[in-house]
């Protein structure tokens, strides 16, 4: 029995070492060997340009086609390496087991069976340990160090001490993060519930839901560009651009509706303090579809007999919703809430795209980027401060993590039964 464990361990190690050496080599060789493909495609591009008389200049055409060539071969190589891994490991596992235990088929299959699960979960574990677990722990330890590696709580003091330089930005970032944390999920949930209920009661509900749903496919930066048209301030001074003047040069719809004159030229999201709410609205616009879809499904799952009973008792639509349906989908509301809270904490793109350098609009995530790029006040400790802010961001998620872990645990139990 002892020898069997030894064989399993040594086979596993052999497979691991082979893979760890072979896959990077294959990748390097494959990339070097296929490099002429780029040039070939570049030449094809030039030939096509000459043949069809394209307006793009020669250099751009060449660059573009070489890039497409790189795209094609890198997609093929990257994907085939990930398939290659499973092919090679399985073959190695079978082969090694056959040579080491050729006397007994039972031992052979035992060895294969013992190693196989680790082949299947191996890449996952390696990637998660290297890219999430170890980095998270090392960020934690970085945050408790000075730049020279000595232990210190100075980075947190730098953020929390009212007399220190980082306090002003950090206070604003915390204030804004908390506002986002409370307002965005609650607005999404209320709107999502409202739309789910209304859409179920009208004929064109499916169409309505699709429209509310589509923003989920759009990037946050794209959403920022979209809403810029609504929240923007006045255009360029009309007199300069076109000759004479135009009667109205308000290009933002909301400001035009509010009757703002062109004199105040700033977009609405640049307003001091109140601008935050316009940025939040963009995220609400994107995420309400998510809440709506889930509530819509949950409401459909409410048992028909409870609704029927309430109807017989003479409940009006409001009572029906608040007294009968809502209590029954309460756990779904909580799940949506935690999902949205985690999303909001990570949100970075919208304030970064629209108000990157404004202290008044900082969130923890944008403050990290700010700290990395243009903090001279942090001195040599910039990386450590960055880590400290990241840890603060992490701490705000902890209650949600606990809830989520508990939920998944319970769910797995139910699935197991």
């Amino acid at each position, binding site marked *: 029995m002892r020898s069997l464990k030894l064989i399993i361990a040594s086979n596993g190690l052999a497979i691991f070492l082979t893979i760890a050496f072979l896959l990077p080599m294959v990748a390097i060789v494959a990339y070097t060997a296929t490099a002429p493909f780029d040039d070939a495609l570049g030449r094809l591009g030039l030939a096509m340009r000459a043949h069809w008389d394209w307006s793009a200049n020669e250099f*751009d055409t060449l*660059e573009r086609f070489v890039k497409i060539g*790189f*795209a094609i071969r*890198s*997609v093929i190589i*990257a*994907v085939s390496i*990930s398939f290659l891994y499973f092919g090679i490991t399985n073959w190695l596992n079978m082969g090694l087991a056959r040579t080491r235990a050729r006397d007994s088929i039972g031992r052979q299959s035992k060895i294969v069976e*013992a190693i*196989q*699960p680790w082949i*299947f979960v191996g890449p*996952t*574990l390696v*990637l*998660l340990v290297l*890219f*999430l*677990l170890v*980095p*998270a722990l090392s*960020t934690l330890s*970085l945050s408790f160090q000075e730049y020279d590696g000595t232990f210190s709580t100075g980075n947190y003091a730098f953020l929390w001490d009212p007399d220190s330089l980082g306090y002003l930005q950090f206070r604003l970032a915390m204030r804004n993060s908390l506002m986002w944390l409370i307002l965005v999920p609650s607005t999404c949930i209320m*709107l999502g519930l409202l739309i789910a209920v209304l*859409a179920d*009661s*009208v004929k064109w509900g499916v169409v*309505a839901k*699709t429209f509310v749903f589509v923003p989920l*496919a*759009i*990037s*946050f*930066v*794209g959403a*920022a*560009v979209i809403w810029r*048209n609504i929240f923007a301030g006045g*255009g360029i001074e009309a007199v300069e*651009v076109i*000759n*004479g003047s135009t009667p*109205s*040069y*308000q*290009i933002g*719809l909301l400001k*035009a509706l509010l009757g703002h004159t062109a004199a105040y030229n700033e977009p609405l999201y640049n307003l001091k303090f109140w601008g935050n709410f316009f940025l939040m609205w963009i995220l609400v616009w994107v995420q309400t579809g998510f809440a709506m*879809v889930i509530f819509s*499904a949950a409401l459909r799952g409410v048992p028909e007999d409870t609704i029927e009973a309430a109807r017989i008792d003479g409940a009006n639509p409001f009572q029906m919703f608040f007294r009968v349906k809502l209590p029954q989908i309460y756990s*779904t509301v909580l799940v*949506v809430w935690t*999902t949205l809270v985690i999303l909001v904490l990570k949100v970075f793109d919208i304030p970064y*795209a629209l108000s990157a350098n404004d202290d008044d609009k900082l969130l923890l995530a944008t403050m990290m980027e700010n700290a990395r790029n243009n903090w001279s006040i942090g001195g040599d400790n910039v990386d450590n401060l960055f880590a400290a802010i990241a840890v603060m*961001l*992490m701490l705000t998620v902890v209650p*949600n993590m606990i809830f989520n872990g508990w939920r*998944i645990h319970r769910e*797995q139990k139910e699935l197991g039964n």
Partner: protein
Amino acid sequence: MITRTFSNVVLAFIVFIWIVPFVALVSTSLRSETEAKTSGFWTAFTPTLLGQRFSTHDRGSTDEFVEMHGNIFERLNSGKSSFPISGEVESILVNARIADPDKPGKTKLIRELMLAGEPFDVRGGSLVFQTNGDFTWTFPEATAPRPKNLDAFINQDPVFGADAYIEVLFDNKNVPNALISSFIVTIPATIIPITIAAFAAYAFAWMQFPGRDWLFVLVVSLMVVPTQLAFLPILQGFSGIASWATALNAWITDCEITDTCQVASKSFASLWITHTAFGLPLAIYLLRNYIVGLPKELLQSARIDGASHLQIFTRIVIPLSVPALASFSIFQFLWVWNDLIVALYIGPNNASDLVFPIRLQKQLGTFKDQLHLLNASAVISMIVPVIVFLSMQRYFIRGLLAGSVKGG
């Protein structure tokens, strides 16, 4: 009945709010530069009063005449290939010097709006225009005046054109580059995690190995770790690898001669690996919950028939799990395509390799005064994910529900 009407009205209002931004986006991208930056998108659908400058005739003409006929719209549209101006001429702004009635011997500048049909003095002649743009310029005797630039206020008809799209796609090289880069990043970053996660999910669902259950809980609980926490160490790791690779490159090849030894630490490959790692917890969670629900008898009988795990996985589990695979691939595709922050920290940062969200974020600054280009670029960035999303909506919703509503 009242509640039915109420529902319709409220829902219509909400849907209206959701649609208006899209209308703004598309209509702005289809307008001319001047219109896009000087008037709101809602004015694009109705005749709008805008100022336009035209010259009475071409420079350098020496023909003498007593009476000249012309058309303001013809003058405006000559030499213009797109966005033809049409509509009604409301008035012309005249800047002229006349004898000052208060100060004899001096002149003063007047600015006056002349309406259609009212003759006014231009370079000693009398000019009359009609609302349809025809104008007549009469002189007392034959002369050859220099051309005069006049500012006309025109109630312009709506006009749309695809010029902005042509410009960003063919004249500007940033948008095509961003499109290609986004594809380079997204396709492997979607396929690789699915492959890896499917194997792991199968192992977590149907294979026996020590520590299986707590490993699964660990993997899934990593789902909520904010990725920001990991950026700095990952970045340091990649720059370590890059310096090794640079040394290796210098040792193997003769790159010192051309000074091309440097291997970039922030590359497409580092983005693929990072996106793969970040996407794995959700993928394994979704796929494992699906695979565990497959009929036990099927898998057991295959085992008894002597099929290996790899055969069961490729022949039975994968074909049966297509819906779950599809729903995760949409999540990952949308997430990677739309991602800004990972690409910003870990992706390549040379101008031609930027992915679309970063390019768009930069264009918010560079196209501040060319809103038609900004909006066209945004539309192009959205076409791919919206098509994927709408065509595979069913699987997306299924994935959403599997993640949050029991039994979905």
